[in-house]
C-alpha cells in the first residue's frame, strides 16, 4: 500500500519503500478537481486531495457511488480534464503528455465510437492512430474481433449494434495497441451475463499477461472477483484503499471449510468451538461481498467524516466491533 494523506491511518508516501514506488505505473498525489462555471466561480469540488498508486500488473478497482469522483479521476488520468491541484504521473509522465498514450488503452463509459464505421473500420482507424503497420493492423483487428465475439457483425455499422455489442467493440479498440495499462470505465455496463463473463475473462487474461488494468465501476459484485486492490471514493475523497482479499476477509470470525460432514461431526466441531467462543458457532458461509464492504464504508464515513481505511483496516470489522459492544445484530447482516 502506498498512499499519502494527513490521516494517521494512511501511510505517508515518503515512508513507502522505494522498490515499491518503482513498481507503480500510476502515481496520484493530492489530486483535487474543482469544476467552475463560465465566470470561474466554484461549482463543485469533485475530487479532494486524492492520493493513491496503481502497481504494475494489478487490476485496480476505482469504486464509488454516482458523483463520488471516480470518473473524474479517470478523466484526469487520461488528460481529458486538468487538475485544479495535485499531480498525476503515468509511467513517470504527466497526464497531459501525449506520448504516454502509446502505452495505454481506454474504454469509455458509453463506448463513444464513430457509429458510421463498421467494426473492421473502427479497429483499423484506431490502429492507424498508433501508426501500426497495415499487416499488424489487420492481424490485431482480426484477433480482437474474434476475442470480443463480433465476427458475425464485423461489416455492420456500429449504429446497428446493440449496447452490448458496442461495449465489445469498445474493449476491442482499447486493446488495439496491446497496451500496458488499460482504463475501463464501467466495462460490464450493458452486457448480458455471458458478456460480463467474457469481459471478466478478458480482464483476467490481461492480468495474466502482466498488464495493469484500472476498472472504474459501481457494480461491485461484478468486479470483486477480478480486482486485486480497490479504492472506494465518496464525495470526492478516498474512503478506502486496500486489497480485495484483505477487505473481504472477516478477521473476527473463523471459517472452516470441509467436504460435506456428517451431523455428528458438525456437532463435535460445535462443541469444540463452544469451548473457545461464548457466541456459539454459525454453520454458514462467512464471506461477505464487496457490496457489504462498500455500504459499511459509506456508513462509517457518515458517522466519522474524513475517516479512511487502507490495507489492513476493514470498515466491516470496525462496524462489527462497535455492534458487538452495544449488543446489536450481526454487522454483516447475517
Amino acid at each position, binding site marked *: 500500500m502506498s498512499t499519502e494523506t494527513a490521516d494517521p491511518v494512511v501511510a505517508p508516501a515518503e515512508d513507502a519503500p522505494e522498490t515499491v514506488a518503482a513498481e507503480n505505473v500510476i502515481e496520484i498525489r493530492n489530486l483535487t478537481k474543482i469544476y467552475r462555471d463560465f465566470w470561474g466561480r466554484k461549482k463543485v469540488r469533485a475530487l479532494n486531495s486524492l492520493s493513491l498508486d496503481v502497481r504494475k500488473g494489478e487490476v485496480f478497482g476505482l469504486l464509488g457511488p454516482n458523483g463520488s469522483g471516480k470518473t473524474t479521476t479517470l*478523466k484526469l488520468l487520461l*488528460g481529458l480534464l486538468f487538475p485544479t491541484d495535485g499531480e498525476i504521473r503515468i509511467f513517470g509522465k504527466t497526464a*497531459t503528455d*501525449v506520448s504516454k498514450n*502509446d502505452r495505454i488503452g481506454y474504454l*469509455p463509459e458509453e463506448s463513444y465510437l464513430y457509429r*458510421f*464505421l463498421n467494426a473492421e473500420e473502427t479497429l483499423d482507424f484506431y490502429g*492507424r492512430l498508433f501508426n501500426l503497420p497495415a499487416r499488424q493492423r489487420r492481424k490485431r483487428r482480426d484477433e480482437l474481433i474474434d476475442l470480443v465475439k463480433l465476427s458475425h457483425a464485423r461489416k455492420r455499422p456500429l449504429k446497428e449494434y446493440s449496447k452490448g455489442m458496442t461495449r465489445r467493440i469498445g474493449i476491442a479498440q482499447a486493446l488495439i495497441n496491446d497496451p500496458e495499462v488499460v482504463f475501463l470505465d464501467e466495462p460490464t455496463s450493458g452486457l448480458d451475463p455471458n458478456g460480463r463473463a467474457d469481459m471478466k475473462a478478458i480482464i483476467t487474461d490481461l492480468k495474466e499477461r502482466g498488464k495493469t488494468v484500472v476498472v472504474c465501476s459501481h457494480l461491485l459484485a461484478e468486479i470483486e472477483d477480478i480486482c486485486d486492490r480497490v479504492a472506494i471514493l465518496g464525495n470526492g475523497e478516498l474512503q478506502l484503499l486496500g486489497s480485495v482479499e484483505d477487505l473481504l476477509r472477516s478477521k473476527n470470525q473463523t471459517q472452516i471449510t470441509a467436504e460435506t460432514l456428517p451431523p455428528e461431526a458438525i456437532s463435535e466441531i460445535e462443541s469444540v468451538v463452544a469451548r473457545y467462543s461464548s457466541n456459539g458457532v454459525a454453520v454458514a458461509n462467512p464471506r461477505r461481498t464487496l457490496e457489504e464492504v462498500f455500504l459499511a464504508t459509506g456508513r462509517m464515513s457518515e458517522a466519522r467524516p474524513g475517516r479512511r481505511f487502507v490495507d489492513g483496516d476493514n470498515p466491516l470489522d470496525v462496524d462489527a466491533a462497535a455492534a458487538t459492544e452495544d449488543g446489536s445484530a450481526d454487522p454483516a447482516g447475517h
Partner: protein
Amino acid sequence: MTELREFDPALAVLVWAAVVAVLTLLGAGVVTLAGLLTGKLSLTYGRLGTSIGELFAFSPARVWALAVLTWREAVRRRVLLVFVVFAVLFMFGSWFLNGVETRTDLLVPRFVQFVLKTIGYLLFPVSLLLACWGLPEDIRRRSLHTVVTKPVRRGEVVVGRILGYAGVMTFALLIMATIGYGWIDRSVKQIDPDARLVSRVPVFGDLRFRGSRGEPMNQGINVGDIWTYRSYVTGQTQARAIFTFEGLGENAFSTVRTAEGEEVKRLILESSFEAFRTLKGDMTRGTLVQYTFVNPKTGLRVDDPDPFPIEEFQKNVHFVPRELTVYEPDADGGEGAYKTYDILEDLIADEADVAFPDPFAPDAVKTVKMRNVMQIEVGTPDRSQYLGVGQADLFVRLADRSFASGYFKAVAGIWLMNLLVITLGVTAGSFVKGPVATVLLLSLFLVGLGRTREFLDELVTTFASGSWDGGGPVESIVRLIQHMNPITDFDPGPGVTLMKAVDSVFMGGLVAVSRVIPDFTPFALGRFPAEGFDVPFVDGLLPAIATVLAFLIPCLVVGHLALRFRELEAK
C-alpha cells in the same frame, strides 16, 4: 471590364508577419495574465511550450487516418446529396437563361456566371456547416475522447478535419465544375454552332494623357459624363491617351489565320473605346481611332497605317502586323519615302525610363524604369469628335488560351474560398460550439466580403498615411469634451503626446484586428471567364492563394492550442 487589383507578394508577407507578431504578443500577454491570476504561470508556459513542440511532431499517417474518417463521416451522412440539388438546378436552369439574349457574346457571361455562382452558393453552406459542426459534435458526442486518448496531437485532429472536409468539398466541386463546363459548352453550341470559347490573355498598360496643346495630364477632358471612368481626347489635336505596356516580347505576337487561310503573326490590340460626337460628321462610319506606336527610349514614333472606326459596345479587335510600312513625307531629304519598322526591334525598348505625371503632385513627374516597354498613343483624326478612354479600354491580347483555363482557375477560386471557410470553421469549432462557430464564420464572411471590408481597408490606409482626422478614441473623447473640431491641432505637451501614443497603440491593434478578418473578395474570379478572360496568376489567383495560406498556419496553431488547453470533459 474586369477591374484588377495589384498584388504585391512581398508586401503581403510583410503585413502578414507584422499582424501575426502583434497577435502573438497579444496572446502572450493574455496567457501571462491568466497565469498570474491563477498562480500557475510556469505550469501554463510549460504546457504552452510542450504544446508548441507537438506542432512539430505531427504524424502524416495519423493525419491521414483522421482525414479519411472525416471523409467517411461526411459521405455517410449523405453530404453529397448536394449533387441532387445541383442536378435539379441545371435541369431547369436553361429554361430561364435561354431566349433572353440572342447574342452569344452576351449569353456566355450569363451561362458562366450561372454555373459558377450555383456551384459557389451550393458549396459554401455545405463547407460552412460541415466545418463548424464537425468538431463540436465530435466533442459533444465524446467520440473525440477515444481519439485524443490515443497518441494523437490535438492539432492533428484539426488538420485531419480540414483535409477530410476539403476532400469532400474538392470531390463535389470537381464533379459540379466538370458538369457545369459541359453544360456551358453544350448551351453555347446550341445557340451558335460555330462559337468558340476562349480565354483571352490581356496585357494592360498604364494610362496617362496628353492635352490638346501637348501638355502632360493625368486625365483627359470631361464631356459631362457623371461616370468618370473614361475621360476624353479631342480629335485632330495633339491630345492623346497614352498607354505604356511593359513586358512585351516575342509572345506579344499571336498566330492568326488570314482570309486566305495563311497563318501570320500579329500584334492584337483589343479596345472598347467610346465616342462622343459633337457633330454628326461622317454618318457612314464610326469615329476613327488612330494608334501611334512609340519607343519610349529612342522616341521613335510610327503611326498605325490602318486607322479603324469604333464599333461601340462591341469588342474592337485590331490586328497589327509585326512590320509596319509607313509613308514618311520628310524622309529622303523631304522627298518622302516608304519606310518599314519592326515593332519588336524598333518600337519595343528593352529598358527605358518612362515619365509619369505624379498623381499626388500635378506639376511633378515621376520616372519609372520599365523593361520590354512600348507606348501606344490613342487619338482620333476626326475633327470635333471626342474619344472616351478608360484604363482597361485597350490591351494587348496575347495568344488565347482554352476556355477551360480561365474557367477552371475561377473554379480554383471557389475551391480556395471553401478551403478558407473550412479552415476557419474547423478552427472555430475547436473552441466554440457548432451554432456559435457558424454565426461567427457567417459574420466574418459578411464583414470580409461586403462594404465593411472596404471600410476596414480604408481604415488601414488612413491610419497608415497618418491622416486620421480627429484622432483615435482618446483624442476623440478629449475633442468632444473640449468642443474642438477634428482638424484643430492641440498645443504640444506631454499630455497630448501621451494621448496620441495611447491612440496609436489602440489604432494599431484595430488595424491588426481588421487584418485578421479575412478578405473574401480575391476569391470572386468568375468574372474573368464570364468576360472571356483567362485568370491572371499574380493579380488573380495568387492573392486568393496567399489569403488561404495566411490563415492556414495561424488557424492550425490556434486550433491545436485551443484543443490542447481545453478540457474536453468540462462541465
